[in-house]
């Protein structure tokens, strides 16, 4: 096994693969380590993303698109449903194929990939990260690198070992569980969201179709709710009530860190990307596109730093991320906090008001304006992120 690399990436999800690719494309040597046996599996994700979010990094291909999304449906606690046509197409992905393709795109630029390679510690030298220690098929190895990019997901332990504060407050952790089910009827071009204390308090319940008879059905609730009741119990109740006919193909749990980005996402010798850096959109909980963006910026800057032989250049990553998306996520976070404590009555009244809006005026921006009409400062935030 090779001992020295320019860049080592920990984790081969979308953020890790993009970090590896954007570093490798500059001609520097890259090793990407993945703890699981397969890239892209197990899938821990609702798998919805905007078309634009995909296109920035890979040409959309039907082999990893389970369905094309044109409509957003919101159901309030009393069962009122409002449907909003999306201004931009979305996809529900097959992540196991999508992630694999992303990893391939990194490999095609020259990145080496090892799966079943579990990073259990960092090598620290002179107060900087100098490499990783990992287990690969029962044997311990060490590898040195000029830059380590930690894209190790929601756990984000690698950053901790470097002294970064990565642990997330449990109220910001959306604790999720999802079934992929078959034998149910849903519109293949609509993503469904359900709100309210009986389905997903301090979170939402989703039904993302993957074709005419298959869907990802799941929910996320805040850790504060989880104190009293688990996500799984909400899911079981919903399925019994709404889709008793459905057969469950898989069950998966997962955590989505719905907060603003960590205060520091780089330190000497190390950068964080994706869920590990808390680069998830805190309002939607979507993290595929933002993770790829974070990873690509990290990879680009890591490669530049190696080529210029300027180790401190990686510290410019924090600002580059903030300018591209980090500040926008702060706006999303304020909106999230504005709607976080909405009562069932409030969700009902939003749905009732919005049901009166003529279909051509139904946009996500207008929905949030309806929801936050008596909160002027947040209306400005809504305008910032939803209106162009």
């Amino acid at each position, binding site marked *: 096994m090779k001992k020295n690399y320019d860049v080592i990436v920990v984790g081969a999800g979308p953020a890790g693969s993009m970090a590896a690719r954007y570093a490798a494309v500059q001609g520097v040597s890259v090793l990407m380590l993945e*703890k699981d046996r397969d890239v892209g599996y197990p899938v821990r994700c609702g798998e919805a993303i905007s078309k634009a979010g995909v296109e920035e990094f890979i040409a959309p291909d039907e082999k990893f698109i389970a369905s094309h999304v044109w409509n957003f449906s919101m159901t309030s606690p009393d069962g009122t449903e409002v449907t909003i046509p999306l201004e931009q197409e979305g996809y529900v992905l097959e992540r196991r194929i999508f992630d694999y393709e992303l990893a391939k795109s990194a490999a095609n630029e020259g990145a080496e990939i090892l799966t079943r390679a579990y990073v259990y510690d960092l090598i620290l030298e002179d107060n900087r990260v100098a490499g990783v220690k990992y287990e690969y098929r029962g044997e311990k190895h060490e590898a040195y690198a000029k830059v380590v990019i930690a894209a190790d997901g929601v*756990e984000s332990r690698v950053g*901790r070992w470097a002294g970064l504060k990565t*642990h997330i407050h*449990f109220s910001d*952790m959306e604790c999720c569980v999802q079934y992929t089910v078959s034998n149910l009827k849903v519109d293949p071009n609509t993503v469904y969201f359900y709100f309210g204390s009986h389905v997903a308090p301090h979170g939402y319940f989703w039904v993302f179709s993957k074709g005419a008879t298959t869907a990802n059905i799941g929910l996320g609730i805040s850790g504060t709710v989880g104190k009293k009741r688990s996500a799984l119990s909400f899911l079981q109740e919903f399925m019994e009530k709404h889709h008793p006919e459905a057969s469950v193909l898989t069950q998966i749990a997962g*955590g989505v860190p719905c907060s603003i980005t960590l205060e520091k996402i780089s330190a000497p010798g190390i950068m964080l990307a994706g869920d590990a850096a808390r680069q998830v959109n805190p309002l939607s909980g979507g993290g595929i596109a933002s993770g790829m963006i974070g990873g690509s910026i990290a990879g680009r800057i890591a490669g530049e730093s190696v080529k210029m032989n300027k180790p401190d250049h990686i510290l410019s990553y924090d600002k580059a991320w903030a300018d591209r998306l980090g500040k926008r996520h702060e706006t999303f976070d304020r909106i999230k906090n504005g709607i976080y404590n909405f009562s069932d009555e409030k969700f009902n009244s939003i749905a009732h008001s919005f049901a009166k809006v003529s279909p051509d005026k139904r946009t996500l921006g207008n929905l949030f304006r309806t929801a936050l009409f008596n909160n002027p400062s947040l209306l400005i935030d809504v305008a910032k992120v939803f209106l162009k």
Partner: protein
Amino acid sequence: MSEKKLRMAKNAKLMIDILPDKCDFCGCCVGVCPDDAIELKEAEIYIIDERCTNCAKCVWSCPIEVIKFNKDGVYEK
């Protein structure tokens, strides 16, 4: 038992169990653990006894109820 009381039990006997047979290895608990006290590999998970302060955040954040207080603690979920 309140969070504060549990904190007082720092360095006391480990009161939290993860049921590995039921675990999905999703990492929620690891992300919220303030003490980096949970080891998670591909399909292996355990609490690092000497780091755990019984703060219970992992219990609350587990989506599928596989982290519990053991008989020395209190079942909350």
